[in-house]
């Protein structure tokens, strides 16, 4: 009886290992997600923005809550080559770096830019980093998905 149980257990473990070994293992390296020009998106009544060119739709309500504002006229969105989304808007004090996951955007980093809030921000894709220009003040910031450079 004990012998049978042991045999069944070993068989089960072997099958589990075999199943795990046969799972998806194909990985493509060096994917460039860089969006050449930022998207300027106008939120709808439900605080959702939709970028038709790059095919992404999400709600900015959590970001507004984080910034403590009720609404913005438009948000600026750009994706770097690693695939992280950078989001900000006029009046925001931070740039939010988001990582795409299954049906969600997960916060990767919050990069503080200006205590008084950005006047007229604009993202530029600059090869190995993202450039943020505040056209109102003339300040320029360089950043990656983790921090200001």
């Amino acid at each position, binding site marked *: 009886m004990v012998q049978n149980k042991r045999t069944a257990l070993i068989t089960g473990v072997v099958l589990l290992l075999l199943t795990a070994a046969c799972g998806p293992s194909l990985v493509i390296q060096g994917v460039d997600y860089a969006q*050449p020009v*930022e998207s300027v998106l106008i939120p709808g009544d439900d605080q959702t923005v939709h970028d038709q060119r790059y095919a992404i739709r999400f709600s900015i309500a959590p970001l507004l809550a984080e910034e403590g504002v009720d609404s913005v006229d438009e948000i*600026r969105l750009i994706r770097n080559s690693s695939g992280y989304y950078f989001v900000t808007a006029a009046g925001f004090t931070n740039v939010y770096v988001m990582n795409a996951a299954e049906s969600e955007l997960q916060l990767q980093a919050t990069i503080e830019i200006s205590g008084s809030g950005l006047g007229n921000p*604009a993202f*530029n894709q600059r090869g190995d980093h993202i450039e943020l220009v505040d056209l109102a003040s*003339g300040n*320029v910031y360089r950043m990656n998905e983790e921090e200001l450079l």
Partner: protein
Amino acid sequence: MRIRINHTISILFTLMLVAGVLSSATAQSSDYEIQQDFRAEYEELVSWVDNAVSSSDLNEISDRIDGFEEVYTEHASLINSAIFPDTFGARMSDLRSRYTAAVQNIETIEQLNERVEELAGEVEQQRARLDELNAQADQLLADIQQSEANEERLSVLVAQYRQNIEAKDEFVSGVLQQLLQRYQSLDSSVMAELSEASEQLDDNPLDIIRTILAEYINQTDQVSGLEAPDYLRMKTQHNYFRDIWDRIGENVSQVFASDRSVQAEQEVTDLLNQWDSSIDNKLWSALTTAFNQNEITLNEFNSSTTFYNSLEAYVGEATAVSREVNSEEDFENFRNFSGYWNGIVKSQWGEYLTKGEVLTFDQISSIDRQLEEWNQAASPTSNLMLILFLVSIAVIIGLVVMLVSKK
């Protein structure tokens, strides 16, 4: 107003370009704004190119396109990404193609405008000359009607009226010749362009033609005192007019009455027919009178065919009588007809008779041949041979008598 707007747009555009250059120079710019500006300025340039209406507009636009390209060439890569699948190069190529097409269109428009101005000037001159001739004719006609009692004055006025008709014929022939040269052979694209351009004209050649014909009809119907050669001349002018109209009528109608060309062409043809009838109403009786005044009584006629038949019958019958009777009177009749036929009809009216299709060359030649037969039949027969024969007999008899008496 338009120049001021263009000037303002020009300044704004220059400022925009300068602003673009400055912003890119400071490097504190937004790629998004650069591509947005590119799109906006490109659309604006396309609009200007497509709506340009003069060469000066295009010269300005050419400079703007060069400036535009210079400013955005350094952002070509960014713009290529932003407007994918289109490219900066393709947009510039498209813009320059549009510009080239606009240059060609405007050249065509400007050429057409020149033609319209030229045409308007010609039509204006023609209208003025026509009005002048018509006014003279109306005045002379009124004077003729008032002076019917005074034969001497009437004769002078009729002579002046005749000169007026000749001057008008000469003027109209010039107008028709000009129309023939211009409108006889036009391809469809030129006709369409001319038609479009002619819409700017208040008065056009088709109107002039209708006015001329209406005045010709009026002149033919109204005036009295004209004679056979006057109407023969009108007949010639009518045939010339009809010949030209047959060659240009369709084109002229399509150019100057494109929306109702068939109807317009028919209207002129109807006027030509009406004029021909008016001439015929006067011509046949004037010819009858002319022959009668020269003691030649022809059978009644009312067409070219019956006129020829009357002439042929007159000569034929006279020839038959001369053959039978051969009197001095017949010979005198022959000399009278021959003198009138050769001295007046052929020498003075010959050109009008043939060009006006009153008689053909063959018909005139036929009358000439019959006249020769009449000449032979009417010439008095000679008695000389009989006299000589009788004298010879008398001489012979005399000689015989002398010989017998000597024996």
